[in-house]
């Protein structure tokens, strides 16, 4: 959600500009963190309302995108806490797939995806979104903020109230789980 500078930090923030420029960013971040469209819509509304009510504070202020990240992440986390009845998904350990000798227990196949592929087709996009939604929440937050929103680890640590080593550890686990979730599709595509 980094500000690309397309509108210039000095541009006056109006409700209309917030609506057009930031609603998709807020919605997508919330949707990916929560893995649920309905909750993401509620969070987007909450966040945009907070933004509009505090617009005067941010007229010409370059800290707006940072603040918006914080408000969105906090709103998503708060929303999640409300879902008391939701059963936590059990996270299996991606490091279980090794023999006692430490070797891979299965053959590791190459993928049919070009490493430098720039644009994703719709099917690949949906596969990745589904894999993200399937991550345990504890890993999904870090993954979305690091590998999609491209935030540095120290900012993620601050946002999620974690240590930087904890962010790195969770990010690595998340990447291993993502790789594992995507592998069957891309390996199968070879045959």
């Amino acid at each position, binding site marked *: 959600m980094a500000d690309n500078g397309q509108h210039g930090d000095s541009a006056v923030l109006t*409700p209309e500009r917030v*609506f057009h420029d930031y*609603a*998709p*960013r807020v*919605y*997508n971040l919330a*949707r990916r963190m929560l893995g649920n*469209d309905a909750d993401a*819509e509620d969070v*987007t*509304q909450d966040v*945009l*309302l907070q933004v*509009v*009510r505090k617009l005067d504070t941010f007229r010409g202020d370059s800290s707006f995108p940072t603040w918006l990240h914080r408000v969105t992440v906090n709103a998503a986390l708060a929303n999640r806490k409300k879902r008391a009845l939701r059963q936590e998904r059990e996270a299996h350990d991606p*490091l279980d797939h*090794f023999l006692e*000798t*430490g*070797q*891979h227990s299965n*053959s*590791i*196949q*190459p*993928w049919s*995806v070009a*490493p*430098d*592929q*720039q*644009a*994703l087709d719709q099917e*690949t*996009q949906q596969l*990745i*979104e589904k894999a*993200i939604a399937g991550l345990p929440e504890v890993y999904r937050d870090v*993954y979305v903020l690091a*590998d*999609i929103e*491209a935030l540095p680890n120290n900012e993620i640590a601050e946002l999620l109230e974690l240590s930087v080593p904890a962010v*790195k550890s969770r*990010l*690595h686990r998340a*990447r*291993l789980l*993502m*790789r594992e979730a*995507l*592998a069957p599709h*891309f390996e199968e595509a070879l045959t």
Partner: protein
Amino acid sequence: MTCKQLVERLYDFIQGELEEELSRHMQEHLDCCSHCVTYVKTYQITIHLSRRLSESPVPDQLLQRLREVLKKAENES
């Protein structure tokens, strides 16, 4: 070094944050283990693909709802 140990330290290896000796051990393992070479490549592709995700459009019904809520908030301020 085993395959499991390499995978455990892969994050630091990719980030270039490993101490030199450990990094050399990992490279030596990769020189003789094709499974781990493929594993590292697919781990990197996973990161690359996630960074290429595009934003989904905001649903029309939410856009309509937001317009109404924002208009109401503006009128109240």
